[in-house]
């Protein structure tokens, strides 16, 4: 069964450093997403991406965050200058769009720890 692949599984970074979280969505999916889950809390939407541009972003997704799909396969989330409160699990997801066959799949997540 096709999977959404996220790397790395765990990343530790110093406060103020830039991090890039990587995702390889399912190949025939058109819609891409990032979600965040602070430990013990609910899963929160960060951003959706379609046709090489952001469809919607949440209040969390401020100027420190950016996304891109540089080569047609990878989908990355960059945090420019990490803060302690950015420590969380980050999930990438992709979907086929229009829920025709419901292909909405989450990756296994990247645990980001900011120290």
């Amino acid at each position, binding site marked *: 069964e096709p999977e959404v692949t996220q790397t790395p599984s765990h990343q530790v970074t110093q406060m103020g450093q830039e991090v890039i979280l990587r995702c390889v969505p399912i190949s025939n999916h058109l*819609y891409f*997403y990032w*979600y965040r*889950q602070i430990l013990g*809390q*609910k*899963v*929160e*939407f960060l951003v*959706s991406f*379609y*046709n090489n541009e952001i*469809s*919607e972003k949440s209040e969390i997704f401020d100027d420190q965050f950016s996304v891109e799909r540089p080569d047609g396969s990878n989908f990355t989330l960059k945090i420019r200058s990490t803060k302690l409160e950015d420590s969380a*699990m980050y*999930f990438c*997801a992709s*979907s086929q*769009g*229009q*829920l025709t066959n*419901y292909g*909405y799949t*989450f990756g*296994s*997540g990247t*645990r980001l720890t900011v120290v």
Partner: protein
Amino acid sequence: AQTVTQSQPEMSVQEAETVTLSCTYDTSENNYYLFWYKQPPSRQMILVIRQEAYKQQNATENRFSVNFQKAAKSFSLKISDSQLGDTAMYFCAFMKPYFGNEKLTFGTGTRLTIIP
């Protein structure tokens, strides 16, 4: 904006028993989708079941079924013959699909423990 409420932070039940997890939501939309996701200790997000709002029939997937009450905006999950592997966080989620965007709005989750 849509909101999803799960009023049971934790639940526990004996193995083989039936348990029902509650979820309510608030929306002014008429066409939408509702989901239950399971998150085991590995923290992977696993789809359990989904319901289309336009369908009156409640969705079922093996031991999992929902009670969808559209007028009451209620979407509960029933797990029959519970198994130890059902121990996990369960999240209820709402989606209003738009062209180019099918984001999910999650509830705060219910931690379910199955007791041997």
